[in-house]
């Protein structure tokens, strides 16, 4: 969805600046897990707005449906049952793209402009440029992008970049009946989260906190968690996510160094030829064989 073309902070596989004359406000979606009732209105709204439909699946003994993110389901309520503070807790987390400030998908992507990051923080896939290699799946610290079986392109939450571009809030926010989902400037969302955390602490959730992981430069989808010290309780939300060092070497330092080394090897050969010169057999033998 290429609606905003003047505020592109970063573009995949591109070494020169992207059009970024326009500076927009950094936005964020705040997911207050403590207010979520698991109604899945956000899931429906997402499919409604993006005009996608999930296949009818099977029940595997959980409210979670579908069982995982798919190329059609860009957001998913994940249900976890745990025992904390000596009592059963049903933790429901709306999963989907976190819109990292330092996006691993964008770093790994080899196709120019298949992944872009707007100055408002949204990380968007432009499927018309996607080549289907799946490098973004390896790059993502949250296991979010899904390769479609239909067209071998990857899909994920756009944070409704098309709606946000024209001043609307994302579809999921619009649908949430408990205001567990709120959307606004990242600054306002942090402030709102802090009020919620103070409230939660007063009510006995002393480890309540904001999930805005610094390892990926912060995210533009944040959580208020009752157990911010144990994000893994929420269906394995990573504690300190970062771009994997393996991906950083592969698509970071190695990329320019290896390319330069190969070019220099070829150049060294040419310089050897014009300085030391070819290795020839004695003239008369060459003549005989010529």
């Amino acid at each position, binding site marked *: 969805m290429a609606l905003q073309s003047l505020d592109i902070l970063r573009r995949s596989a591109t070494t020169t600046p992207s059009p970024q004359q326009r500076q927009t406000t950094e936005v964020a979606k705040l997911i207050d897990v403590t207010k979520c009732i698991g109604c899945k209105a956000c899931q429906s709204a997402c499919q409604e707005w993006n005009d996608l439909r999930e296949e009818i699946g099977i029940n595997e003994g959980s409210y979670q449906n579908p069982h995982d993110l798919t190329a059609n389901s860009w957001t998913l309520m994940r249900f976890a049952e745990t025992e904390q503070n000596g009592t059963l807790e049903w933790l429901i987390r709306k999963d989907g793209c976190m819109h990292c400030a330092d996006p691993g998908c964008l770093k790994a992507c080899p196709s120019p402009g298949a992944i872009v990051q707007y100055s408002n923080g949204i990380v968007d896939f432009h499927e018309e440029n996607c080549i289907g290699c799946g490098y973004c799946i*390896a790059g993502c610290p949250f296991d979010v992008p899904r390769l479609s079986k239909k067209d071998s392109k990857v899909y994920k939450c756009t944070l409704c970049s098309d709606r946000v571009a024209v001043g609307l809030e994302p579809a999921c926010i619009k649908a949430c009946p408990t205001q567990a989902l709120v959307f606004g400037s990242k600054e306002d969302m942090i402030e709102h989260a802090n009020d919620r955390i103070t409230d939660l602490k007063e009510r006995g959730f002393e480890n309540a906190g904001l999930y805005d992981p610094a390892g990926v430069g912060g995210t533009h989808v944040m959580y208020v968690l009752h157990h911010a010290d144990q994000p893994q309780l929420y269906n394995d939300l990573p504690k300190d996510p970062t771009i994997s060092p393996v991906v950083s070497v592969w698509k970071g330092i190695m990329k320019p160094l290896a390319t330069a080394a190969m070019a220099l*090897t070829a150049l060294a050969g040419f310089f050897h030829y014009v300085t030391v010169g070819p*290795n020839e*057999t004695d003239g008369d033998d060459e003549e005989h*064989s010529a």
Partner: protein
Amino acid sequence: MSATTRPSLLLRRYNAGQRLNHWITAITFLLLTFSGLALFHPSLFWFTQFFGGGTWTRILHPYIGVVMFVSFSLLALQFWHHNLLSRNDVQWLRQIRDVVQNHEDRLPEVDRYNAGQKLLFWVMIVTIPTLLITGVVIWRPWFAPYFTIDTVRIAALVHAVCAFVMISGIIVHIYAALWVKGTIGAMVRGTVTRAWAAKHHPGWYRRVIRGEDH
């Protein structure tokens, strides 16, 4: 020069089957290098144009890789026993300065292959199967979904490292063929001159002249 004396001056180094096998490997190598580098560094993404765009590059690369693996395996089966390192080879490598300075007369006797050629062979023996295995792990949409994301990450990095080593090695291989005059004919027409053989591969030359096996 009469036609009758001509054959005696030339020595057969590779038969037609070996040449065909080598060039299938070489062509698939070039296709793989260009399609692989296109997806490795953005400045080389334009190589995808040779293959019909980015998506076609992604689709074709692994299939070409399988062809190269099979083709190279046939080469390796034929030539591995010529590539076992000897004591002379260690000395040859110690005198690598003499090698690059064209002071071949100072080097220990070389048989069918010199130490540089043998090392290249073993680099290929290590990198090509590794490229196949890691390539299967990252092959989408067919095989990658069966591996964990961590495994795919490691495979992608190892694939890139092996490809880098291999491409660098082949650049040296191609340059050596251009640098040592009279070499290319060995792989194009299958023959080399006696003088070429006597100078660069004296051990092999003596065996061939005696009518021994290559």
